[in-house]
C-alpha cells in the first residue's frame, strides 16, 4: 500500500497562535479520516474568523491537545526555528508470528506534515506573557500592521484547509476499509527528528 504524503503550506504564526492553528488543522485532517459514526462539532476559532469541524470524540480531543502542548514546549526551547509536526495514519499489521517475535507492525498509509514558522516579532509580542509589556504608544500603524498580519495568517490558514480538502478528495483509494465499530483510523502525532 502506498503511503500518501501531504506537505501543507507553511504558516507563519506567532507563539500565541500556535495552539489554535494546530487544533484547527489537526482536527480537520482527523475529521476526514474519522470514517466511523461521528457527531460533527463546529468550533469557531477565537483568533480568526474560521469555523472548523471536530469529530466530537473527547478522547481524541484530549490527545491532540496533549500533543500540541508537547509541541509548544518544544518550540519554546527552540525559538525562531522552523518547526514541523507530523500526523500519520497507520494500519496495525501483525508480523508473522514466530517463536521469537510476536510484534505488530505499523504500516503508515498517510502522512501529513504541518509546517510552521513560529515568529517572535520584537514589535509585536508573540507570547501571551508579554502582552502586558506592550509598547507605550503603538499608534495606529502598529494596530493596522497587526490586523493586516492577522488577516494574512487567516487567509493562509484558510488556504491550508482548502489544501486538506483537496487532498482528501483526490486521494481516496489508499484509504483502508472501514472497520466496524472504529471511529477513526489509528494515528500518531510526532515531531520529526530533523527538527528536534
Amino acid at each position, binding site marked *: 500500500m502506498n503511503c500518501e504524503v501531504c506537505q501543507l503550506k507553511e504558516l507563519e504564526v506567532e507563539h500565541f497562535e500556535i495552539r489554535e492553528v494546530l487544533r484547527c488543522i489537526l482536527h480537520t485532517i482527523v475529521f*476526514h479520516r474519522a470514517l466511523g459514526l461521528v457527531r460533527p462539532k463546529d468550533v469557531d476559532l477565537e483568533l480568526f474568523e474560521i469555523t472548523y469541524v471536530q469529530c466530537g470524540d473527547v478522547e481524541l480531543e484530549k490527545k491532540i491537545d496533549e500533543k500540541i502542548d508537547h509541541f509548544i514546549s518544544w518550540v519554546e526551547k527552540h525559538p525562531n526555528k522552523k518547526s514541523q509536526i507530523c500526523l500519520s495514519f497507520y494500519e496495525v499489521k501483525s508480523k508473522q508470528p514466530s517463536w521469537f517475535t510476536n510484534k505488530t507492525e505499523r504500516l503508515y498509509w498517510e502522512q501529513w506534515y504541518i509546517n510552521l514558522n513560529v515568529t517572535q516579532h520584537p514589535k509585536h509580542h508573540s507570547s501571551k506573557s508579554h502582552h502586558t509589556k506592550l509598547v507605550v504608544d503603538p499608534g495606529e500603524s502598529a494596530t493596522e500592521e497587526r490586523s493586516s498580519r492577522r488577516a494574512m495568517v487567516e487567509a493562509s490558514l484558510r488556504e491550508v484547509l482548502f489544501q486538506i480538502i483537496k487532498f482528501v478528495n483526490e486521494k*481516496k483509494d489508499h484509504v483502508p476499509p472501514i472497520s466496524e465499530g472504529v471511529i477513526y483510523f489509528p494515528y500518531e502525532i510526532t515531531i520529526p527528528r530533523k527538527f528536534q
Partner: protein
Amino acid sequence: MEMDRESGKLEQIVSQFRSKILHVILDSRVPSLHHHHHQQQQESLSHSRVRKTDKWFNLVLGDRPPALENLNFSLRNLFDPMVIDIILVHRGSCSSSVDNLYSPSAPAAGPADETVIERWVVQYDCPRFIATPSGADACVSYKKIYKKSIILLRSLYTQMRLLPAYRIFKQLSSLSQTYNFDLVYKVSSFSHPFSREEESGMKEYIFAPVEALSGCLSVSVTYRATLSDFNLEPLVSLPPKIITDYVGSPTTDPMRSFPSSDKGAHATSFPLRGARPPSSSPFQRPHSWSSGFHRGFPSTKTQSLAGSPPVYRISPKPYDIASPPTDLYGNRIQNQRVSTLQQVTAYDEYKSSPPFSPSASPSTPSYLSGTNPLRTRHCSETAPVTIPLPLTGRSTRYLSPNSSDPSRHSLPPLSPRSSKHDASSQESPSGIRSYRKIEALRAGESPSGLSNNYSAQKVVRDSKDDSGRFSALLSSSGSPRIGFSRSSSRLSFQDDMDDCEFSCPFDVDDVDVSDSSSQNTEGKKASEFTAQSNLVGKKSHDAAVGILVHMLRTAPPLRQDSSCYSTHSLRTEYEGGVSIASGFFMPRKTADALEELNSYREMKDLLLSKSGTRVVRKEEIK
C-alpha cells in the same frame, strides 16, 4: 441477480447521498432549519440516540426537515441533477421593522433583491459504457463507493464552513439581531444559467467525483467569492421605553370607580387624569403590558417584556417542491417565497424569532392579531390613573415606584411591573384606599396589636389570579389576602405592599395610625377620636376621606380649638376637669361633663389596653 442486488445498493447509496447532501447544505445555510435542527440535536445528544438516517455515511445530523422528504420524492430520478440554490434576499431599504409591524399583511415595502450566492449541483452521471463486474467485484465496488462517498461528504461538510456564505448564515442565525436579509433556498432539477455579470463574481469548486461502475457521483459548487457588497444591517429595534408615570390599570384601582353614595364619595373621589372613561383611556399612552396578552397565542413566553416580533428576516419554511413539473418549481417557489415573506404574522415563526423591545410591543397586537389595538386593549387593559392627594392639593400626583414620602403620596409605592394591570379586575373600590391604609400603618407608629397583625404578614400574591380585590381584615388577625387584578406574569409587589388588609369603603377605619391612639373598631366617637389624630399625613387617602365625611355628617358642631383632640388635651382635661376632648360643645352640667369624661377615659383605657399600654390613672394612684 447478484448484480441487481448490487446495483440496487448503489442506487440506494446515491439516493441517500443526495438526501444527506441536501440535509448538510440546508442545515448550514438556512437559519430556520438550522434552529430546528439545533434544538433536536440538543435533545438527541441528551438521549444519545442515533436515527437510521444518521447512520448513513456515518454522519449524525439529526432529524431531516420534513420538506426534505417531499424533495426526495420529487427528485426521485437519480439521473436528474439536483440543483440547490442558496439565495440571499435583501429587503428594500425603505422598509423598516416598524413598518413591517404596522402593515404585516402588505408586501414588504420596497423591492426584495434576490441574489444566488451559492449553487450546489449534485449529479449522478450514467457512463456511456457500463461495466458488468462479477459478484465479488461488485460487492467490493459498492463498499468502496460508500467509503468514498463518506469522505466526499466529510469534505463537503468542512467546505461549507469555509465558504463566504457561511458567515452570512451565522449572522442571520444569530437570535440577538434581526437583519434586512433572508437566506432562502431553492431546489430543482435544472438550473437557470447565471448572467455574465453574476458569473464574473463567482468561483467554482468541483469535488472529486466518486466513480462507480454504473455511474459517477459528482458534486460541484459555484459561489460568490465575496459577499462584502451585501451590507448586512441589523434592523433598528425600537428602544425600550420606560413609562415613568405608569400608575396602573384603572379597573384595578378602586379610586376610579367609587360607588355612588350619600357620603359624598364622588365629591371627594380622586379625579382621574383626564377624567376619561376606561374605554378611552388606554389610548392615551403606550402600555408595556400589552405586548403579549391579547394575541391569543398559546405561548406568551416569546412575548414577554422582550416581546416577539414578526419574523421577516428568515424564510420560515422551505420551498415545498412536491409538484412534479420542474418548470413550475421556480414559479411555485416564487409564490411561496413571497407568501412566506409576507407570512410574518404566523405564530410558528415566533419560535425562532428574536425578541423585540418592550416599547415595540404596543404595536404588535394590531400587527399580529389584526384587530383594532384599541379594541384589543379595551378588553384587558385600563388607563393609568393619577391619584392626586386629597388634602394636599396635589391632584396630579402620580404614583411612582420610588415615591418614598409616605406623607405625600396617597398610594404605596408600586414597582413598575406591579403597576400593570389586567382589566379583569373585580376589585372593590376600596382596594387602593385600603392599600393606603396599610401604607399609613407602616409609615406610622401602629399599636403593637396592629403591628402584629400586619408586620408579620406577607402579601399573598397569587400570580395566577387575573382578578382579585383588596380585602382587608383589619379587626382580626386573619391572614391577609391580596389579589391584584393584573396580568399574571406581571405581578410584582414591593415589600411595602405586603402587609395589607383592606376593608370596604368608608368603613370605620380602625387601622389608622396615630401617635397616641390605636385602632378603634367600635363606635363613632372612637373613630372620630382616632380619625382626627390620623389625619396628619399618615392616613390612607381613602380612609382620610371616608373618615372626614363621616365626621362631618355625624359629628356635632366642632369646637374651634382643635388641640383638644389630642391625648395631651385629654390629660389636661382630666386634670382640669374640662371636657373638650371630644370637641363637642354644648351647655351641660358638670355632672354630664364628668360622665362624658369618664366614658372617654374608659374608651381610652380600652384602646390603650389593646395596645398593651397600661394606663395608670390618677384615681388609681389615689
